[in-house]
């Protein structure tokens, strides 16, 4: 479980989240209704540790894990995964080298096969001229390797296989998913366990 108390987020002096108090339970699907894209970004970016976002208030975890002490890479390595459409071309970095740096022992050939992702991608520059489907499959591979505890779901047009893979992963691991939307409702097949309005 994690809890936000009197939580404020500012960027460039503008308050984007004001006095938020809420609790999130582990292994739950949480729905977060945002008024704007800026608010959604403020919530995600401040938690993953983007230094451009200034926070105040308390973020409490059920364990000894102290978020304030962690830089972005540590937070993301230990807790969060931001599943978004943000896919910058990583100049000069080949997919196989990126994956090897992430986890040298993983059998990526089998993993690529299981996601029906072509092996040629291994020798390509990460995200260079990839289709949306390839990008989303690659992000699922990242999730599979990083094994995050919380996923900030921020894809505009997810493919069906994304939901399917995430629900399979939820069964195996205690995985919390945070879904962001400007709408009041979500598709019925998603069983929302908590709803927060920012």
């Amino acid at each position, binding site marked *: 479980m994690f809890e936000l108390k009197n939580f404020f987020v500012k960027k460039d002096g503008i308050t984007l989240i004001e006095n938020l108090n809420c609790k999130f339970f582990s292994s739950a699907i949480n729905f977060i209704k945002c008024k704007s894209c800026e608010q959604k970004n403020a919530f995600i970016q401040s938690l993953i540790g*983007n230094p451009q976002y200034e926070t105040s208030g308390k973020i409490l975890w059920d364990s000894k894990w102290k978020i304030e002490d962690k*830089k972005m*890479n*540590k937070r993301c390595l230990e807790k969060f995964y931001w599943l978004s459409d943000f896919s*910058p071309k*990583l*100049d*000069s970095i080949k997919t196989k*080298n990126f994956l090897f740096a992430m986890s040298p022992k993983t059998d990526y050939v089998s993993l690529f096969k299981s996601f029906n992702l072509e092996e040629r991608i291994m020798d390509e520059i990460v995200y260079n001229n990839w289709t949306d489907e390839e990008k989303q499959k690659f992000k699922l591979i*990242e999730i599979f390797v990083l094994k995050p505890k919380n996923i900030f779901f921020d894809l505009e047009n997810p493919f069906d296989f994304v939901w399917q893979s995430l629900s399979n992963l939820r069964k195996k691991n205690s995985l919390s998913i945070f879904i962001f939307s400007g709408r009041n409702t979500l598709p019925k097949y998603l069983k929302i366990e908590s709803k927060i309005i920012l």
Partner: protein
Amino acid sequence: MPVAKALQGLTAATIKQLSSHNKEPVWLVKKRLLSRQLAATKKCDLDINNLRVPLTSTNIISNSVSPQIPRKNLILASIDKSVHLHETLFRQYFDKLASYDQNAASDYNTAFFSSGAFLQIPSGVEIKKTLNLNSFINSPRINQFKRNLIILEDYSSVKIVSSGDAEYYPGINRNFETTELFIKKGAVCEFKIDQKWHTNVHVFYALNVFVENKGKILIKIEDTQASLFELSVNITLYGAKSKCEFVVLWHTGQNQKFSKTIMIDLKAPEAELNIQDGAISQNQSTQQSNYQINIGENAYYSKCDFVSKNLIVGNDAKITCRPEINSQNSRSQVNSSCQFLALNQDQEFYLQSRGFSDAVVHELFIKNMVK
């Protein structure tokens, strides 16, 4: 650990005391004195009269007594003892390469060395275990002069790590290290320079290599730590089909100043040279690289690949890379490229959001650019 007794100043009197302490032969004393005179004629920014030199040897040769290493005919000993035990062999090879180094530090090393290793691997012997030639500093404000002499006879092979370590002392300590490496017919040597010193240590490292027919040298330099590191490498690919791979990845941080001068001569047919140079310079650090590669008139069908990738991160960081490749043979093949990059914020952000630390992000960029 006993503290080394030290002598004051890079003077002739210091040389005489050093030689007398080690009961060195006259020819070596003369060579030391001559090298000191030669060094004085070269450009040097050091205040030589205020430098302290250890009188006693401080070298460690790790694995020197390993039972896995075939001892028969193998020579592996400290350099000060080898002067007496293997004088003929020592005299045959000592300073035959380093004397051509343009750097004053190498001449001072010849004049004042008091520690180091002497290694000769007999023909056909393959040493599988990595030998670690470790040096350390155990006195404040000391200037250690370490000398290694390594001879690989025909078709022998070895992996060597030249490492450095020091206890922390206030003030500046210096490590002057010179290695001469002879690689004979068909012999193979993997030589790794792995020097991780405290930030108050200045390192002057010279590596001189001579490679005969079908011999191969692989040099790797990574993760170096010191506040100032001056590297001088001279390689002669003397024999036909001799090969050299030179891989360096330097990552400098706050106030670190690294420079390297690399001179490589390809003198024989079908010689091959492959250089992969990676540099990452962060805030207020400086890196300077000068490469001079000469492909001689007899180096028919020789190959030279040179790749340099440089990444500047943050403010006031500087990288200079000056490759100069001269070919006197129209039948040789040269490929060279030198790239400078600045890290894109989006790319850095994405990688950090996937758990990569700053250091891994920077190295991932460089390592993947270097094939």
